[in-house]
């Protein structure tokens, strides 16, 4: 496990990498994604766990994205994700539509080291019709029972934000167990944290249940308020006003450029987080 500067952490992601990131309400790696934009990341294949939000829309708008695999791209209360919507209509990105429990299940299969996993429902959905990589079989345990099998999905990277890491590389994500699933599934996991703590998080029985063990963690960077404008557990709430501002600006190309200039590209002490 290595402890890096934020920009060095973002530089770990090569062009065309498949990167799983959480949505806005799940400790999203917003500061990391802004660093990716500054570095001119290219041809990324993003995976929503299980949906996608601000971070994905920002990367799409900045031209960093070739493909999105997700159950939805949304700014929630702030409305449609403007760059995503534009890019899909213009055919500028490949969209692999999925459905939430299928995203979870495909990652779970990778994290359990099994090549596929069954899931109920979904039969008859056009989502299935557009996923030639998904397969319907007859349930081998019960005749006349068609059931969908999903292939394991092991992204090249999982990236998320968390409250704390220790120097051994254990990361405390609290109740965001979906981040553990991402880390288990991905080949490499990069994490931004509010702070590095002394001691070993796994030795504390109160903390251990919310810890992802260092065996899964490749590198960590400190990024204070790194989920902003998303919130983080009881550390800080989300910034609903900023999501509205983003949604308003990103509605036009020029507005999006202004947003980038003001909040992403300006490398000051504050912007570098």
């Amino acid at each position, binding site marked *: 496990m290595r402890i890096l500067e934020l920009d060095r952490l973002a530089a770990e992601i090569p062009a065309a990498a498949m990167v799983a990131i959480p949505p806005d309400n799940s400790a999203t790696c917003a500061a990391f994604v802004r660093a990716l934009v500054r570095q001119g990341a290219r041809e990324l294949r993003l995976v929503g*766990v299980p949906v996608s939000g601000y971070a994905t829309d920002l990367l799409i708008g900045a031209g960093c994205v070739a493909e999105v695999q997700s159950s939805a791209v949304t700014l929630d209360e702030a409305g449609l994700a403007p760059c995503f919507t534009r890019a899909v209509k213009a055919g500028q990105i490949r969209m692999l539509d999925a*459905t939430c429990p299928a995203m979870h299940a495909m990652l779970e299969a990778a994290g359990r080291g099994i090549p596929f996993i069954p899931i109920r429902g979904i039969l*008859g959905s056009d989502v299935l019709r557009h996923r030639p990589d998904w397969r319907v079989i007859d349930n081998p345990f019960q005749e006349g029972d068609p059931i969908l099998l999903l292939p394991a999905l092991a992204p090249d990277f999982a990236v998320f934000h968390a409250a704390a890491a220790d120097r051994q590389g254990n990361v405390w994500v609290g109740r965001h167990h979906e981040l553990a699933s991402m880390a288990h599934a991905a080949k490499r996991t990069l994490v931004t944290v509010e702070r590095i703590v002394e001691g070993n998080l796994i030795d504390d029985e109160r903390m251990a249940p919310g810890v992802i063990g260092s065996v899964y963690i490749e590198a960590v960077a400190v990024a204070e308020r790194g989920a902003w404008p998303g919130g983080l557990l009881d550390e800080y709430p989300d910034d609903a006003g900023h999501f509205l501002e983003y949604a308003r600006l990103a509605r036009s190309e020029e507005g999006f450029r202004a947003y980038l200039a003001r909040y992403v590209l300006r490398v000051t002490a504050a912007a570098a987080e």
Partner: protein
Amino acid sequence: MRDVLPEERLIGAITRLILDPGKRRARQVAIGAASPIPAAASYLAREITGEVRISVLNQRRGNPFTNGTGELFDLTAEGRIDLFFLGGGEIDGAGNLNLIGVGEWPGSVARFPGSFGSAFMYMMVPRVILYRFEHSRRVLVPRVAYVSAPGTSPAGVFRRGHGEALVTGKAVFSFSPEQARFRLVSVHPGESAESVRRATGFDYDMAQPLAETADPVPEWLRLLRGPVAAAMAPTYPAFVQRIWPAAERTRSA
């Protein structure tokens, strides 16, 4: 007590559906993100019966999930969720939902956010109530452009339930999975059979006689403006402030 608000009438209509004595009891109800009207109906049902548990996605406090954002789907797959609410960018007369888009796949003319969990939840929850405030020919279409979640399934496909009703800003429909067809049950005050027909893109049956959607009874209004508003305020602050401003809540209490 002040007049019944349109939102309160919608909430009351959904609450009646939740409490339908002819249906499986709704002990465990899940609410998707950003749906204050169905959420309010569920909280009201909880106040009335005392036995409804409510899981609101993304709710910080009071959310029973400790195993990550996938836990709702595991609970649902096991049959532990009784009732869920769904909507859609398009809803057609056979109960199909489109949350994907219109035009060339995956949405060259209009692109909605995506299917979320609908393709799974619609088939795996025993009871689903459809809710969409906008009642227009743009939303209620003869045939959805794409099926995020099918209204019915062929025999042999594992499915626990179907949409049982559709509540909009104008009316309440029931749904027959056998006929894959809606029936107009009641129209809200100010609407008529004709105004609903004009605004609806799909064909449907009509209940005879056609009722007017009933107001919530006074006790329900008291519960809505008191304990329901209080329970919802942390999760839906803007909605609660708009519908039940603090002064009004105090007056009702």
